[in-house]
């Protein structure tokens, strides 16, 4: 009795709205919507890669022109770190993540969880795959710059090189602060954004299976 009443209440609940479609316009809306979403994801993925490419070009120029062997090694290591950074970002880019919404509820939740766990691992280990390699390479570069008076160095490069002790110290401190900030920000994103979501998904999966 109550069962049938509930089913009737449920079935009637969609009768409150009359839904109509203009199919031609709807398909146009979908196509535009899809293109716009894909563009947003692509731009987000490319923004960080673009920054790394600027770094590669800048340190490529320095590595080519600087006469100091240690600084040149540091610049080359920095380029390698940037390339590794791009590789890591491309391997984990969000646009590669497929939603697979036609999977069963349990499978879909597991997929979603796996994606979040991967993001958590990526952000949590940022110290090892990004910050440390860049920091060490940068220190080698900064402290490897010697006395430029014996060499003919392009003036544009001369302005960029940390020549005296004061500028070496300033750049080192800036790099330390920046590294700490990047690690802190990523760890915070894990704790604030991703871990609660993983916990939420775990709860739903548990409830579904129980």
């Amino acid at each position, binding site marked *: 009795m*109550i*069962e049938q*009443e*509930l*089913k009737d*209440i*449920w*079935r*009637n*609940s*969609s*009768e*409150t*709205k*009359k*839904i*109509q*479609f*203009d*199919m*031609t*316009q*709807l*398909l*146009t*809306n*979908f196509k535009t*919507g*899809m293109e716009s*979403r894909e563009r947003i994801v692509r731009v987000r993925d490319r923004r960080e890669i673009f920054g790394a490419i600027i770094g590669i070009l800048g340190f490529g120029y320095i590595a080519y022109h600087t006469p100091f062997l240690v600084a040149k090694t540091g610049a080359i290591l920095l380029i390698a770190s940037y390339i590794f950074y791009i590789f890591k970002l491309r391997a984990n880019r969000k646009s590669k993540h497929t*939603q697979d*919404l*036609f*999977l*069963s*509820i*349990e*499978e*879909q*939740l597991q997929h*979603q969880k796996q994606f979040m766990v991967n993001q958590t691992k990526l952000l949590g280990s940022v110290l090892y795959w990004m910050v440390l390699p860049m920091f060490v390479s940068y220190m080698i570069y900064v402290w490897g710059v010697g006395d430029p008076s014996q060499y003919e160095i392009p003036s544009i490069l001369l302005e960029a090189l940390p020549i005296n002790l004061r500028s070496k110290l300033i750049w080192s401190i800036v790099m330390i602060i920046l590294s700490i900030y990047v690690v802190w920000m990523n760890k915070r994103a894990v704790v604030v*954004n991703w871990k*609660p*979501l993983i916990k*939420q*998904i775990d*709860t*739903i*999966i*548990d*409830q*579904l*299976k*129980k």
Partner: protein
Amino acid sequence: MNQQENQAFEKLLEDNKGKIYRICRIYAISPIEPQDLFQEVIYQVWKSFSSFKEQATISTWVYRIAINVCLRSKLKFEKNSLKTIRFDAIQFMASQDTSDQIEDEKYQFLRDCISSLPEGDQSIVILYLEEVAYKEIAVITGLTENHIAVKMKRIRKLLFDCITPKLN
């Protein structure tokens, strides 16, 4: 999509719009409205339409997408993506013959009782109210038919205990 697929998609929408909207009404939590969720579900159905293989029935497939989209909307990181501009191509008009206050009240009771169930059980009770067979619920959820039968016994009791005093 070609002309034939467009027609098949249009038919799918007409046949399933009611059930999609009912599911969206349960999962929509402010600031997301049922209309936003509905739009997102049919967008995702359209996006996946060409990959639909007849291993599952079309209704199983639609239920999966609808519930998966709605569940994701409850997760914080999905909320921003749902704040999209509403398409003019979908019109929601108030039905004239449904201004029955008692029916609305009864629906609110049912909605409240469904919302009081554990998150994982809500999707199962929705499918039960849709009169989907246990076998199909098992395919949609990814659980076994026996598991669904055992769970349904417990969920029905919870639902009836919650709603019976309210309806009387």
